[in-house]
């Protein structure tokens, strides 16, 4: 989160993507010169199956306002089944996150294939817009600020 009086809110959105599908899809969006919101930053991983929920929690701890998790469509996993396990993990993560009151509009899971540069661009724009509208993730940022105050 970075916000100050004269500046507009520029959300920090972290994207955890698999290198085979979504990363390549985002490359395709680039080579196709599709224009999209600059707030989403990508961390490349081998597979959605590698994505630990700790990554997402950490992203919020460090100040993210939103998170995207994206990889190969079911059936397309380079490692055959990584995204299937990930799907269950994220479903339960979704359950727990919303139960403890995290607005799940801040976290978007998506399947974006290497051919879906367009979908990637749309996803980024959609999530950016949504998080911009939701504003900074203040309830979570407050925890960090309190923690930092505790250890000034």
């Amino acid at each position: 989160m970075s916000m100050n009086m004269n500046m507009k809110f520029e959300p920090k959105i972290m994207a955890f993507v698999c290198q085979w599908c979504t990363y390549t899809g985002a490359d395709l969006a680039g080579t196709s010169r599709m224009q999209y919101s600059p707030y989403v930053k990508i961390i490349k991983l081998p597979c959605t199956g590698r994505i630990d929920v700790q990554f997402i929690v950490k992203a919020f701890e460090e100040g993210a306002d939103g998170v995207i998790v994206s990889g190969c469509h079911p059936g397309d996993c380079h490692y055959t089944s990584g995204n299937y396990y990930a799907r269950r993990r994220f479903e339960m993560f979704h359950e727990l996150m919303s139960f403890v009151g995290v607005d799940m509009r801040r976290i978007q899971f998506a399947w974006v294939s290497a051919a879906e540069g367009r979908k990637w661009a749309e996803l980024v724009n959609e999530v950016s817009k949504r998080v911009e509208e939701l504003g900074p993730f203040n309830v979570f940022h407050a925890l960090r600020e309190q923690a930092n105050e505790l250890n000034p």
Partner: protein
Amino acid sequence: MKSYNSSIVTKQGLKQLIENILAHKYRLLAPKKSGEQLSFETILRAEEVVLNQLLRTMTTLSPKEVFFPRTEPVLRYTGQEMHDVEPPTPETVLFGIRPCDARGLELLDKVFTWDYNDKFYLKRREATTIVTFACSDQASVDEHCFCLGVGGDPTASSGSDLLLSTNGDDAFLLEVITEKGERLLNSCKEGVELQASDKRAADQLEAIKDRFVRKQDLTEVRHKMPEYFDSDQLVQETYRCLGCGICAMSCPTCHCFDIVDEPKAGTLGEGARVKNWDACSFALFTKHAGGHNPRELQCQRCRQRYFHKLAYYPQKFSEESLCVGCGRCSRSCPVGLDIYQAVTHVLGKGRA
């Protein structure tokens, strides 16, 4: 130390005193209900102090946290630079602790000064005036209390600056113990009706003693403890310990801490070196970097705690044990472990 100076104060007067403390911009800490727990919290309005409650129920965690917080930074860093940290030390009144807690602070003083003067602890001590409530209410003493067995006294004044005790239904006895206490009282007694008295909290001692279930004297135990170091009985007594740290964290005298570097979230290269509560019952407490753990089993860790309380500390500092008999550890232990019971069983001095 001044000779004693007691007065009777009404409930209303006590309330006024509290209001005056707040009005004089002291930070006031007193037991307050949070959730189902009673804990020391910052008091903003006098009515938040519920006297009946604090007389009858002991806080889950001891007041040591006021001086030795569960976490505090000892230095800060920005990039390559390091900065000293000065502990924030607002003038504080700690209200409503028990005589055992107050005594615990005196024991801690020795730990934090014997080879190095821990400024974080000491500055807070200096800035804090302690108003103790003697365990003079019918319900102040429960079946876990055993201060009498470790050299304590439910009406004792040591470690306190002011000592309160009940005096009939709606009045209290207020004793000035130290100059610090006197200073506080003098600065805050405006509108508080004080009626001089020759009574002392200690007058009630004999009556209160009767309420104790646990009266076994453990003070001499330290001489016997070494014989029981390898005792099977002690192992039996502590076999069910699960190695959580509740006993240490709720204890008024456990003082072990861990030092870790905490990067400041949301920044790079900034952070603090912090001191966090630790506990000898944690499996990692003595684990060496190479993987060896000299206290491999939980009963060994439990033994360490008992020995530290009852044998090592007395050997090192004084004839007093490091346990003040507040009973918090056995009250909170999720598997019903009990230092008093374990030690009395093992030493064959009878059952509780």
